[in-house]
């Protein structure tokens, strides 16, 4: 079986990448491993708390836990399915080794099966990894033995594969009927819209009400809701039934397990058989070039460059930055997800169960930290990666008579303006819905503007200090050592900013609670000035280090 020969190369590559790691690379791997383990431990602790709370509810505690489990599996199934739609089209039709494989004496279904394994792995591993602490928390709460974990492991394999195979089948048939590189772009947009929709829909379903039975008018209705199957026709429910049956000591769990494996085998056979007829046509069509046509006229930035000759290079670079950004479909999918994130963020803030106006104003202040976190994630995604994404084309700028500062400024202006707009949306709308008083409104808007600008400068600077021009995809840049340092540094900066501004905010609340308390304005100005200057100095230091580093790149 040639599939196994193909599989062996994956194992060898994996083995070599681990065994060749030594020195600093090995240390970095260990750091990442420890961070990952601590994240999983954090998730485990949170899940245990939630499940123990649910378990403590009289009479319906266990039903609540299984209902939540069914919902978790349903969500995971949906997310894997959506991810696989986007990932399948890339692995099946655009992997770097496809030309080699397709020109080798291999059957199309063997190549297809090999790429299916990649798709299943890439689309499911993060969600499945996040499920492990949940299952351990379930075992701890309900006193289940390790047999439960073994059953979960056995059932989760066809579960994840089935979810991924929906995306694989969809890609196969779509590429067969529409064999074009444009199909990939359409899939990216559809995939992103679906993720955004699922994310927003899940939040709007107000899952927190599950923990508050009193919010449903009729108790019987609530119990019925809990006992009803959660999408009985989907493998997520079959996985739930496998686990509930095993936990209850019923051997019927074997039948549910058979259903999962049986359905997966049938589906796998049907898709692989179809691939022998359909795959090559799609593969051939995927190699068609883009038919996009640009305008022969000059852009507004190029016209501005002619008017403002002293900043000619800056405007030309801005034009290049804008065109290359908006013509990359992957950026559009990120924008769609950010819009969904803003919607969910503001919706969550609006629905916070807060009664007193003081508490609402206080939350508005703390919201600076939360909005700052979102901004730092956006800065990581767009600003930190912007230098590395010059990629192999960076030699063009590097060998040209261009000041590195102009490259930095063009990137900063292009990304900073929309990021500040985003931060205004997050804080402004939150303040509006929570009815923040004028003082809190002003201080939070001022703070988030300074924080956003500083994070944008830091994003570009850290991206320049830790560039990687040889990455295959953007996620490798984000999850690099530099990306990790940038996020850690950003968190520290945001925490310090909130701590510095906490003084005047405390005085503000004291003067509201106690009219005799004197609000000393000088402390407000001292705090604001200190906050502004340390942000400015931090930006300046890292900007200079980044510039210095970028000027010394050897490519």
């Amino acid at each position, binding site marked *: 079986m040639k599939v196994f020969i193909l599989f062996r190369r994956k194992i060898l590559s994996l083995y070599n990448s681990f065994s060749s790691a030594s020195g600093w690379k090995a240390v970095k791997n260990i750091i990442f491993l420890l961070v990952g383990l601590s994240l999983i431990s954090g998730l485990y602790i949170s899940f245990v708390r939630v499940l123990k709370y649910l378990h403590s509810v009289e009479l319906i505690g266990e039903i609540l836990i299984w209902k939540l489990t069914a919902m978790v599996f349903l969500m995971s199934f949906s997310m894997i399915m959506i991810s696989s739609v986007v990932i399948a089209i890339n692995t099946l039709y655009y992997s770097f080794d496809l030309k080699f494989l397709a020109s080798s004496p291999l059957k199309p279904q063997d190549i297809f099966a090999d790429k299916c394994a990649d798709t299943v792995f890439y689309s499911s591993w993060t969600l499945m990894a996040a499920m492990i602490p949940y299952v351990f928390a379930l075992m701890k709460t309900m006193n289940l033995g390790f047999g439960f974990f073994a059953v979960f492991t056995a059932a989760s394999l066809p579960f994840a594969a089935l979810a991924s195979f929906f995306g694989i089948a969809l890609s196969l048939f779509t590429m067969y009927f529409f064999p074009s590189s444009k199909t990939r772009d359409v899939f990216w947009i559809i995939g992103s819209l679906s993720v955004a929709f699922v994310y927003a829909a899940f939040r709007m379903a107000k899952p927190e009400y599950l923990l508050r039975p009193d919010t449903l008018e009729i108790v019987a209705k609530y119990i019925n809701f809990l006992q009803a199957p959660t999408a009985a026709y989907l493998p997520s429910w079959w996985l739930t039934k496998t686990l509930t049956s095993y936990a209850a000591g019923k051997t019927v769990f074997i039948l549910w397990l058979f259903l999962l494996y049986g359905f997966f085998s049938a589906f796998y056979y049907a898709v692989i058989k179809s691939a022998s007829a359909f795959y090559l046509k799609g593969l051939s069509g995927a190699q068609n*070039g*883009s*038919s*996009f*046509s*640009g*305008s*022969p006229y*000059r852009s507004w930035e*190029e016209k501005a*460059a*002619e008017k403002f000759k002293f900043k*000619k*290079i800056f405007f*030309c670079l801005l*034009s*290049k930055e804008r*065109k*290359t950004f908006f*013509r*990359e479909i992957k950026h559009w999918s990120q924008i769609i997800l950010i819009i969904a994130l803003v919607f969910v963020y503001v919706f969550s803030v609006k629905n916070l169960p807060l009664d007193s106006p003081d508490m609402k104003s206080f939350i508005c202040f703390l919201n600076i930290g939360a909005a700052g976190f979102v901004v730092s994630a956006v800065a990581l995604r767009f600003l930190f990666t912007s230098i590395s994404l010059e*990629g*192999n*084309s960076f*030699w*063009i700028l*590097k*060998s*040209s*008579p*261009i*000041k590195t500062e102009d490259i930095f400024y063009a990137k900063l202006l292009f990304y900073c303006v929309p990021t500040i707009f985003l931060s205004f949306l997050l804080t402004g709308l939150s303040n509006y819905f929570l009815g923040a008083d004028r003082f809190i409104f002003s201080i939070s808007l001022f703070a988030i503007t300074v924080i956003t600008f500083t994070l944008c400068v830091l994003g570009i600077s850290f991206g320049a200090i830790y560039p990687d021009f040889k990455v295959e995809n953007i996620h490798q840049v984000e999850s690099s050592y530099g990306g990790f340092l940038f996020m850690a540094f950003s968190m520290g900066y945001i925490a310090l900013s909130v701590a510095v501004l906490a003084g005047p905010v405390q005085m503000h609340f004291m003067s509201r609670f106690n009219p005799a308390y004197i609000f000393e304005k000088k402390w407000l100005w001292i705090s604001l000035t200190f906050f502004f200057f340390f942000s400015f100095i931090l930006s300046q230091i890292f900007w200079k280090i980044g510039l210095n580093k970028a000027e*010394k*790149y*050897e*490519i």
Partner: protein
Amino acid sequence: MIEIKNLVKKFDSFTAVNNLNLTVDSGEIFGFLGPNGAGKTTTVKMIAGIMFPTLGEIIVDGINVSKNPYEAKKKIAYIPDEPFVYPNLTAREFLRLIADIYEIDRKQADKSIEEYLSKFELLDRADKLLGSFSHGMKQKVMVAGVLMRNPKVILFDEPTVGLDPKSVKNFKEMIVSQTKKGVSVFMCTHILEMAEKICGRVGIIYEGKMVSCGPVEEILRVKNKNSLEDAFLEFTK
């Protein structure tokens, strides 16, 4: 004119270029030959200012590349062995970007862009994304970008890889016409036949050291060979 003095480039303990001394005159085509990993690309990158020498200096048209890279780069045109360009820009947009960076008058730039795209038979693809171009088509766009800006020094690293025979002929003619304007051409190549035909002098680099340099006839005479290929193999044994 290019002057290379005592040039050394080290990567940790490995010496990629070892005490290289060379002068390429105005109007001269210099062929830089050597086996894979000999130090050709490293040398070209140092002249282009995208890699920095460990020791020594490079002077292009009287300007020290390490000390004043900004001014030196205005006089240099470089084409790497792999034609990496912005895949999401069209050919016209890319050439306009180059024209603006090198401060070419816009009317003149638009005229040159049309002229070179037409010469390389790319006019009908002018507004298509470079990402959809083949290797050879990208190479043509880059050559057009070099020729339109009237540089003093042109650096080529394997310039004809991917070009069709007609474009190779066009390319050779254009290179010769550039030297008539006083341009120095520094060309790394594995195509010994081309080096033999169009280069005034050739240099052979082996394990970072220049093992032979001079007109082709002189190199053949030293090793008593009839073809550059035989002499090259003898020098790099």
